[in-house]
């Protein structure tokens, strides 16, 4: 087993891509994704991995190039953030139904305006419905492991779908953490070579991306959705085998001190570690608080979440995204829908926090729990509340 080293999370993630023996990387630089693609350019330039690094002219070009590369049968990776993800948006919807298993690291960052390079989840939540498998990493080890897992799952012939790993910009991407990198032999043991079912090959010509006339369009969309839902089985299997080989077990949702909890915080991404500290603090004060963290966002793990929520009476759901004019944040809406008219379901309160790099502190988590507890007794006027905003 490889030893633990101190390494910047972006570099660890890029090392995972290298160890995956990637064939083609097409990427365009954007803060805070840059360290990932810089490191990949370096390892390609140094011959540490035999791959083509295509320095494309835009993120739209990056995703277009990835579609071509994947369709030609190459293991394909890209990474982006924020405005770059939005520039890709048109093309992001295409590899899903076309079953092209591209892997992408999204380094989550706020959206303009005002322009901000700092972290929240507004970029990825705006692209929620692109039809990719989506996971969220909490720490550096997870960023590394989930990237390898992504190649394994995406390229599995039963799945054959694009997959993204989300890491929080700066607060995760740029921190140095202790990460246990796997060796090449270990990765090779876990990740088989990419053998696409279909690829562009003159010996067996196929037409990819034909016109979906009304007689077939609905069927094509439903087929994609079914494939995405069915991918959960392979996602779980991929995590189980990872655990069998390397001892680290991942689940679609994780819990922390939730067994007897009356109120649960619900988080995604790197703020979860702060949330755990907040849970400890509240437990010390005698509050029965716990945490549920969503790792797998798409396909949404409904049964796993319900089980994780257990018998809690209240959920304080944290969103890192403010959808203007909506009834609540995207995670809040997802969970309200999940529990709608389910007997004995918890009361759900939605908090929006940490926009554009604002720290989400232990105190704020305590405030959310306090407010959610009060709301459970007296219904609030609004369906969500934004936490930590100066009024003057």
């Amino acid at each position, binding site marked *: 087993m490889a030893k633990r080293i101190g390494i910047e999370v972006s570099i660890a993630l890029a090392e995972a891509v290298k160890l995956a023996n990637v064939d083609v990387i097409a990427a365009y630089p954007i803060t805070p994704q840059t360290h990932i693609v810089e490191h990949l350019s370096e390892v390609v330039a140094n011959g540490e991995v035999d791959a083509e690094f295509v320095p494309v002219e835009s993120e739209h070009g990056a995703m277009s190039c990835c579609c*071509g590369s994947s369709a*030609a*049968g190459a293991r394909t990776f890209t990474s982006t953030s924020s405005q770059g993800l939005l520039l890709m948006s048109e093309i992001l919807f295409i590899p899903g139904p076309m079953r092209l298993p591209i892997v992408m690291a999204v380094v989550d960052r706020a959206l303009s305006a005002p322009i901000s390079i700092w972290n929240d989840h507004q970029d990825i939540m705006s692209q929620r419905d692109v039809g990719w498998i989506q996971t969220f990493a909490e720490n550096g080890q997870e960023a590394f492991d989930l990237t390898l897992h992504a190649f394994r799952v995406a390229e599995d012939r039963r799945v054959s779908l694009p997959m993204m790993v989300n890491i929080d910009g700066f607060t995760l991407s740029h921190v140095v953490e202790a990460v246990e990198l796997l060796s090449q032999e270990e990765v090779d043991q876990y990740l088989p070579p990419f053998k696409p079912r279909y690829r*562009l090959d003159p010996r067996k010509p196929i037409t990819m*991306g034909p016109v979906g006339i009304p007689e077939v369009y609905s069927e094509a969309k439903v087929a994609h959705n079914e494939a995405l839902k069915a991918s959960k089985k392979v996602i779980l299997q991929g995590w189980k085998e990872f655990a069998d080989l390397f001892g680290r077990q991942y689940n679609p949702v994780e819990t922390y001190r939730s067994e007897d909890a009356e109120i649960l915080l619900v988080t995604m991404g790197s703020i979860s570690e702060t949330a755990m500290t907040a849970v400890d603090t509240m437990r010390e004060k005698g509050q029965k608080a716990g945490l549920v963290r969503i790792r797998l966002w798409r396909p949404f793990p409904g049964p796993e979440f319900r089980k994780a929520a257990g018998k809690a009476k209240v959920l304080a759901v944290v969103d890192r995204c403010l959808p203007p004019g909506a009834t609540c944040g995207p995670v809040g809406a997802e969970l309200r829908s999940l529990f709608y008219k389910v007997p004995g379901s918890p009361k759900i309160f939605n908090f929006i926090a940490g926009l554009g790099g604002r720290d989400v502190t232990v105190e704020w988590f305590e405030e959310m729990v306090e407010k959610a507890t009060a709301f459970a007794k007296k219904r609030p006027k609004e369906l969500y509340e934004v936490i930590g905003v100066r009024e003057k």
Partner: protein
Amino acid sequence: MISEFEKFKRFKAKNLPRKEMLAPGHRACQGCGEVLALRMAMKALGENVIVCMATGCMEIITTPYPQTSWKVPWIHIAFENPASVASGIESALKVLRRKGKVSKKHIDVLAIGGDGSTSDIGIGWISGAFERGHDFTYICLDNEAYMNTGVQRSSCTPYGAMTTTSPPGEKSFGQVTWKKNVPGIAVAHNIPYVATASPAYFLDLMNKVKKAALVKGPAYVHIYSPCPTGWGSAPERSIEFAKLVVETRIFPLYEVIEGRYIMSRKITKPKPVEEYLKGQRRFRHLDKEHIDHIQQRVNADYEKLIRLSEMT
């Protein structure tokens, strides 16, 4: 001179390939000059090619699922990006060949876009792919407007032409801008091969497409493509217009090989532009003043081209 050209025996009427890579039965309009040009281009390339196509007439008429006209591997991703998709395919083939995962045999990579895709929405993507030097061919099938969406103007629409977004009226005479010089933009990228072609000169067209594929690095072929539906011209006159456009010097045929301009066909006794303009509804509203202006500009542009061919 490019060494790959030496071995290439040019297409002649006697040695035309019999194999069709684009099957009949597609849904093109009667008299479509674009699908004819496409068929010739594919005939020239044969079966060892991967095609990336932009959204547009040729894409929709050839692939209404579950039918396809394509006998070669073909992919459509979106409107503006066939050059990027081709970049990805070319890069993939390169590395997979190196790693022994695909056969060592060379496969041509072809990107195809219409004039809207090429001159407007996709020009940045093409520029990127040319600059990076991918070994691929880009063909622009230029029917001089957004025909697939119902004849809207593009930056390749000729001066004075009526389209649904450049309508002549009290205060307008139609398209107010001159056709964008896309082959010139391709040349500015210092790519090894650029050419213009017209389906009326089909051997010339096929030879140019084949040369574009043979050359190492990016190549660009700009093909004039008559569109009876969009131009308001008689379907049976498409080839005639494809010939007239050259004979009037409006669309000169030339190659630019490693920066050297070579006229494919010098037009010593040009026909007046009016002969080309009449018979197309899109130019019907033009008065003498505008026609004279077009004539002058055509003369000037042709002279410029001749000077370039003499200089280089």
